[in-house]
């Protein structure tokens, strides 16, 4: 192998610090480009060893600090003015990444050490197995940089999105935009480089706080250095071409509960509204562990299979059949049961084998969700959902749950992930792979605490999702506070700047003290990557994501002020047809019941008619004006004296 650059060091081995097949030590000049995380190559006698620097030491020939004090006469200033500098060593420890030949596996030879070139990085990280050829599966994750050299680092999509391994977990302290930026950059990289022969891919992101993911379709202002890094990685710095946003309404049912309410962004910002049917299928989510028992399950099953969405006839309850479509209908159904039981008196504690207490409990829980999640859960039964079955290749769908009650957030997670799973199982989602991004994983899959439905669902996703093409990208500030199996199943892990308290937990015991210090001081835009092909963690830097960040997005697209009911309806309709006049809408709904307007608006949104205003008007129905009841002619009272019976 030719070496255009001179070696930067030399392997040394002593009895106390020997070379082993997994680790070696080398010294360098005092002024060296080598640092923690640098990849180096050792070559000697036909054996080539690649390693990554994990620790560094410097010491002089000073035997004891006392000698330094004596030679400086106790004056620290004089200590720096010694005419000769002591002999010093820069000694580095490196962990072996790869050896060639791989067999027989031997201790690292005591040869010269070079900084790794582009080609060396490819070999060292075993990227040669998946970045070359016609069916390459490499996904750029960042640039490895050391000593003025810079090499792209690729993840293997077979190990990132399945089927070999899957899932990705990101850990990093909040406030440095590491987690969100990393996932935005990586999703963009996946969308641009995911090979066609592996099928189609889409992403579904849950925006759990602020405006973090609210502007994925808006371009960011990038520096020349960012653009250079994109070019080096072979990527185009473009925002997501096909992004769709979904957010529930606020309690008024017309203003969206998201920070993405700027009028110019309304085109692809859709309401997320579910009805009773959608909620009931995931009723388990809203039940706490104490609630979940066979009796409750049986009653929920009864409601789901026999009552909701069907015609239910029970002559004992009332003469006409129940048509339960909405929470209001359900409440009427419950009311009928309770009235019936009340009539039965003391003996009326069981209705169709379901105990009255169980019925009351289920009724309370379901009405609770409709109350706490007003805006997500509609009372009129008209749902606006994600485009199940019509997910487009390279599309990203953001569900904004940041403003939702935690219970409602759980419901959203559970239902959406379950629906993804169902559709992927049936292969009718529209894409072959879906990346689900969940931030604040320590909140949804905590290491300790009650075993919630969402945690079980995330665990199931992490353990079995890859077979379906359902991939979990998750992030949290403290990995140690997340359910171990959920993060453990992530084939790839990214680490941004970390808190030292977190780094001192046993989970990071395999990292050297120097690597921990580097992680604790990692600048913005740098990550440590663990990937199945890399035998050691690797540090990379990545350019700023090509999409507008949350804070900038809010400045450029300030959220619309919460509008009065009529104006909010007008804006919703203008989102469907920009020719709709606000005045016309105001005049149209003036004096109407808000529930009627919401219902008409929901139907209009769902149907997306050509003539929006006409359709909406039709849905509202004819205005019923109040009537003044005219006094009727009355039959005069019988005069007392006319009573033939003498009363």
């Amino acid at each position, binding site marked *: 192998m030719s070496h255009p650059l001179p070696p930067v060091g030399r392997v040394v081995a002593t009895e106390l610090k020997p070379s082993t097949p997994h680790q070696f030590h080398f010294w360098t000049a005092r002024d060296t480009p080598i640092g923690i995380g640098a990849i180096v190559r050792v070559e000697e006698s036909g054996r080539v060893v690649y390693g990554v620097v994990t620790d560094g030491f410097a010491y002089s*020939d000073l035997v004891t600090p006392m*000698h330094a004090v*004596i030679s400086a006469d106790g004056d620290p200033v004089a200590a720096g003015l010694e*005419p*000769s500098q*002591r*002999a010093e060593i820069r000694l580095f420890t490196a962990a072996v990444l790869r050896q060639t030949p791989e067999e027989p596996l031997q201790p690292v030879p005591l040869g010269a050490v070079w900084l790794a070139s582009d080609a060396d990085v490819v070999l060292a990280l075993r990227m040669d197995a998946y970045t070359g050829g016609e069916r390459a599966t490499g996904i750029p994750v960042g640039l490895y940089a050391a000593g003025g050299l810079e090499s792209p680092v690729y993840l293997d999509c077979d190990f990132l999105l399945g089927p070999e391994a899957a899932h990705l977990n990101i850990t990093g302290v909040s406030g440095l935009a590491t987690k969100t930026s990393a996932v935005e950059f990586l999703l963009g990289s996946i969308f641009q480089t995911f090979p066609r022969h592996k099928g189609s891919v889409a992403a579904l992101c849950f925006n759990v706080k602020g405006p973090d993911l609210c502007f994925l379709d808006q371009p960011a202002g990038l520096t020349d250095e960012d653009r250079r890094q994109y070019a080096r990685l072979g990527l185009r710095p473009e925002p997501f071409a096909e992004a769709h946003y979904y957010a529930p309404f606020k309690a008024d049912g017309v203003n969206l509960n998201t920070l993405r309410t700027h009028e110019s962004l309304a085109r692809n910002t859709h309401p997320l509204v579910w009805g009773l049917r959608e909620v009931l299928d995931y009723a388990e989510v809203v039940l706490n562990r104490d609630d979940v028992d066979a009796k409750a399950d049986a009653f929920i099953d009864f409601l789901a299979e026999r009552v909701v969405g069907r015609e239910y006839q029970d002559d004992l309850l009332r003469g006409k059949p129940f048509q339960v479509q909405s929470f209001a209908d359900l409440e009427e159904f419950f009311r009928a049961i309770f009235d019936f039981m009340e009539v039965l008196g003391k003996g009326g504690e069981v209705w169709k084998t379901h105990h009255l207490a169980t019925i009351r409990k289920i009724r309370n829980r379901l009405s609770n969700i409709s109350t706490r999640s007003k805006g997500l859960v509609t009372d009129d039964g008209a749902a606006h959902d994600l485009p199940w079955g019509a997910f487009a290749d390279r599309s990203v769908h953001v569900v904004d749950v940041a403003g939702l009650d935690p219970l409602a957030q759980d419901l959203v997670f559970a239902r959406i992930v379950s629906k993804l799973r169902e559709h992927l199982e049936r292969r009718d989602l529209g894409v072959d792979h879906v990346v689900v991004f969940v931030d604040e994983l320590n909140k949804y899959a905590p290491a300790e605490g009650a075993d919630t439905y969402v945690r079980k669902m995330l665990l199931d996703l992490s353990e079995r999702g890859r077979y379906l093409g359902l991939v979990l990208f998750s992030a949290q500030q403290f990995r140690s506070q997340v359910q171990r199996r959920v993060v453990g199943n992530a084939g790839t892990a990214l680490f941004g700047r970390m808190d030292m308290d977190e780094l001192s937990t046993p989970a990071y015991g395999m990292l050297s003290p120097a690597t921990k210090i580097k992680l604790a001081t990692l600048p913005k835009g740098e990550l440590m990557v663990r990937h199945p092909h890399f035998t050691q963690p690797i540090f990379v830097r990545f350019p700023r994501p090509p999409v507008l960040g949350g804070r900038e997005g809010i400045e450029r697209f300030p959220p619309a002020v919460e509008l009065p009911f009529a104006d909010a309806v007008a804006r919703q309709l203008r989102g469907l047809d920009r020719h709709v006049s606000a005045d016309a809408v105001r005049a149209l709904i003036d004096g109407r019941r808000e529930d009627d307007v919401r219902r008409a608006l929901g139907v209009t949104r769902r149907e997306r008619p050509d003539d929006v205003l006409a359709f909406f008007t039709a849905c509202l129905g004819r205005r019923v004006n109040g009537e003044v009841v005219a006094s009727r002619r009355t039959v005069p009272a019988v005069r007392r004296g006319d009573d033939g019976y003498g009363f």
Partner: protein
Amino acid sequence: MAPIKLAHLRRALALRGLTPASAVPEASGGRTEEACLRPARLVEDAALAWHPVGTSEPWPGTLAFLDGVQRSELLAYAGAAPIVAGEVAAAVRERSNRNLVTVLEERRLLVIARPAALAAAGALPEPFRTVALPTDEPPHPVRDLANVARALDRARGALELELGERYRRRSEGWLVVDGALTESPLWAADPRMLGVSKSHATLPFEGDDLDRYLRLPPGHRSSLYAPETRSLTPVREWALRLWPWEGKDVFHGLVRIEVAPANGNPEMADRLSRWLLAERAPLSTPDHRWDRLLYGIHSVEAYLRADGRRLA
């Protein structure tokens, strides 16, 4: 250069009928000197006096250090005559921006024995050079080993001279030599060379002067004197106390400074002494001679001993 395996050499000598041996001769680690008094002539003051030299000052300009090392190992016996393999090395390390860098280095491998023993050993592999011991007396292993040590001393001294002259051809900077300048007339006359002797086997005074000489206070120098030398290379000397000696030993921190006669005046002696006092730091520990060993000289020795033993 790959180390030369002495075991292979011993095997080859055994095949030639010689008796392999491997004991390390005594006194192989350095020069051999005999204690003696050689009264010197004072060139400053009527009687030996102490002179405070003032506060230490950094050495201006380029400064280099020259030193050499030697080692030897017994190879075999040809009858009663020992055959010894030796290595001598010397180097000059120059200081630039506080960093000491080797600018000159030379190493030689020697086989030292009586001519007959060398003949019995046959052709020796490159790069060994042969050094013949004197034959004016019959072979005696102990005496021959002492002669080997002297031969190694000479070989090392010659190498140091060679490097000193080569350095002077490439630089006009000050060169500090470990030992005496009187090894060479050129050195003894060089106004930019300075010898620092740690050894006090040869003392320049006796009686009360010697008492005064040995009790020199720290930061002081003795009067200048002209030592009695065996060769015709006049130099000037003075003693300088680098570190306090009381409570330790009269030789603790005491060095003998040797300069060309051109520098043998009180002003120059004071100035050079101040510069040398600055060279006390950093300490040349862990060498046990740290109180007299300048770090620059220590650095040359450490370099020569660390950079490859040619005999293994």
